[in-house]
Every structure is written in C-alpha cells, then in structure tokens.
C-alpha cells in the first residue's frame, strides 16, 4: 500500500513485523516526503481513514481462503462477516486473502488498488454503529465500498468509471462455482477473472459485456 499511496505506514511493531501472536497492527500513517512514485490520492485517503478510524477494523490475513460454503474467498469476506453471529453486537473479524491481492497487483495493479480500497472502506463502514452492509432502501457499506472502488479506478485510469457492473456467473449446468470465470465491468475497461489457479485477470478494453438495463 505504501508504494501506491506515498504514505509511510506506522505499526505497533518495528518494520510492521508480526507480534508474538502473529498480529500486525497499523496505528497511523505519515506522508513519505521522499516518495517519487505515482500516488493514488483516493486510495491514500481510504488508507488514512482506516488508520484513523475510531471503529476498530480488523482483518485476518491469509492465503487461499474458503468460506463456509467451501467457496474461494475473493480478496475479502466482509459479506460473510456481516452475516455471521455476533458477540456483544460486534461484527466478527473479516478475512483478507493477501495472495489474491498480490496476484491482482502483479497483473492489473489498478484493479488491485480499487478492490483494496473497496474492502477497507466497506470494512470500516459496516462496523460503524447503526450501519448496514446491504442496501436496505438506503446505501449500505457495500455500496460505500463500490463507490471508493470506482473513484480509485477512475484516478488510476484517468477516465471517469461507472460503478462496477458484475453479471452473475452461471455455468452451462446452472451450477455456480469459483471455477467459473466472472467479470467486473466499468466504463472503459472490463476485467475477466478466474480463480482456478490463483487469480488470473484478463483486461478487456473497451468492455464487451453490456450493462443490463434495470
């Protein structure tokens, strides 16, 4: 995240090394004045918001995760966390698949940034008192995540992008599995994604999938 935001991330431990429990805790951010790379300001703002959030947003970081239905977790499982039983009203800790993020970053860094911004902002929003994950007539945390994702991608591509359109992936047999590729469609670009062997992304521009008219 430092290489995309120009921020130095400050942790509880030196060099952000895991503590004795394997925990890495970010406690703040600081502008790196000697940074010479390209800063995505939208992502930087999300990271600063996350680091300064009064709500504690925690993420378990792992690789090749599966959810309760045995399906691959793609990037994060905020949605499952929202639906899970609560202890004293607290939404359980979300899981983040770092291998997915690394795969995205190596192939389509702009999409990787956008999806990181999505789960960070969504994770904070869904833990805000009175929040909802879903749209219940008013936008929920997921909608907030989608909007951040759109803004980060807009900045990264230099072209205003529409909110992600994602048609439901259905196999010829009607069964939906993570082996079935899925697509994220924006205004000028479409990402066809497969989770068969890690994350494989094919970038298509202009998009070949038309948005449905609702």
């Amino acid at each position: 995240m430092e290489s995309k935001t120009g921020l130095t991330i400050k942790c509880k431990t030196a060099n952000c090394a895991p503590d004795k429990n394997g925990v890495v805790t970010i406690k703040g951010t600081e502008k790196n004045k000697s940074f010479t790379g390209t800063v995505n300001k939208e992502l930087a703002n999300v990271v600063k918001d996350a680091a300064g959030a009064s709500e504690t947003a925690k993420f378990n970081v792992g690789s090749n995760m599966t959810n309760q239905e045995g399906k691959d977790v793609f990037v994060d499982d905020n949605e499952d966390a929202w639906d899970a039983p609560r202890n004293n009203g607290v939404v359980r800790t979300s899981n983040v698949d770092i291998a997915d993020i690394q795969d995205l970053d190596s192939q389509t860094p702009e999409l990787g940034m956008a999806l990181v911004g999505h789960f960070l902002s969504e994770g904070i929003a869904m833990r805000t008192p009175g929040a909802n994950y879903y749209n219940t007539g008013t936008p929920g945390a997921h909608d907030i995540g989608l909007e951040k994702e759109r803004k980060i991608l807009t900045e990264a591509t230099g072209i205003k992008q529409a909110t992600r359109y994602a048609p439901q992936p259905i196999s010829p047999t009607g069964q939906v599995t993570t082996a079935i590729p899925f697509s994220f469609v924006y205004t000028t670009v479409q990402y066809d994604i497969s989770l068969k062997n890690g994350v494989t992304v094919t970038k298509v521009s202009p998009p070949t999938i038309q948005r449905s008219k609702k």
Partner: protein
Amino acid sequence: MTAIAFLLLVLSVVPATTQTMPLPLMSGQDQEWQSKVTEFLETNQELRKYYNCRFTGEFRSLPENLQAELEHAFPKYKFFIANMEVYLDPPTKKHDLILVTDAESGTVVSFVWFFSWTMPSASFEQILLGDKVKSKEETLNRVKSLAELIVYTGNGKVGKATLQKGKITVEMLNGEEVFRILEVKIDKESRLGRLTIRRQDGRKIG
C-alpha cells in the same frame, strides 16, 4: 486512534449446514402453487431491484412448531422459505427469501429477505393491514410469530414484545443487540395498521 490489526489467519472450514429440499407439497393444488411460486421467483423484478439473484429451485422447510404457529396466527397466508443464490461480490452466496402466499390461491403476495437483510417487498407492510384482532395477546402473538419466522432465517432471536400507546413493537436480536424491530399500529377499533421493519437505529427499511 487506529486501527487495522492484521492477524495471522488460522482458518477453519465449517461445512454448510443449511437444509434445503424441494417444496414439500404434492397434491394437485399444491403443484399448481409450486409452479406459481417458482414463476414468481424466476420473473419478479422487485426481487432484483437491489440484488443480483436467482432461485436455486430449492425450498427450506420450516420447523413444525413454527409452521403451526404461523398457520394459527395467519390463516389467510402460507409461508415458504426459498433458497436464493445472490451475487454481490464473488463468490455467490445462498440466502433465504421468505415468501408470503395467499392461502386460497397460492399467489405470492409479499416477500422479505433473510434476517441479515430484512429487506421487504413494498407490499409487505400491508400483510396485516385492516385485520381486526380480539385481544392484546393475539396481537402480540401474531407479530411475534412473524418475527420468529424472520429470525429463523439468520442468527437471530426474538427479544422484547410490547404493546404501548396503540403500537406493537417486537425486537429481533442478533446476539444480545437489537438488530431489527417489527412495528405495527393498532387503532381504537382493534384494527391493525401497516407493518414496518426498522433498523437498529430506528430508520425504516425499504
């Protein structure tokens, strides 16, 4: 101040436990109902207003005591829980959809999504409208049984049920926290008003 704490993952995979089955109805009339319900689930646009979803072809059975409670409380309706596949972020997830059907014709009159969403159809607020009730107890039991049905589709339980100043409220809890509230007014002639589902912050859902 902060904080995003990154914890190392010790992941345990929990097998899916949802019990689904074909609609447990087999008489001629019931088969007609099944096709009506299925057609509704496959074509209704209100269902797809906010969520990208499709019917899996399966229904979830209700516990006998809850079924009996609902039949007693709502003789003019039959309730079903359809298993829907919903796609917001990958992968797709399976969620319950509560269907309220007319007990005479089998026509779907209303629906409400599972407990975590509790997003109702526009017609849901009318399912009790104008019904005359005989006692405070009957009123509370009707709304409570509806709350029982909703929490059955999630990790919830029914909390406090009260009737005060012509308004019935039934809490639905997630853990110990009030997560949703069912609310209905009752007039001086003991007729029920519109049914409202409120969020934990008091805002109306839908």
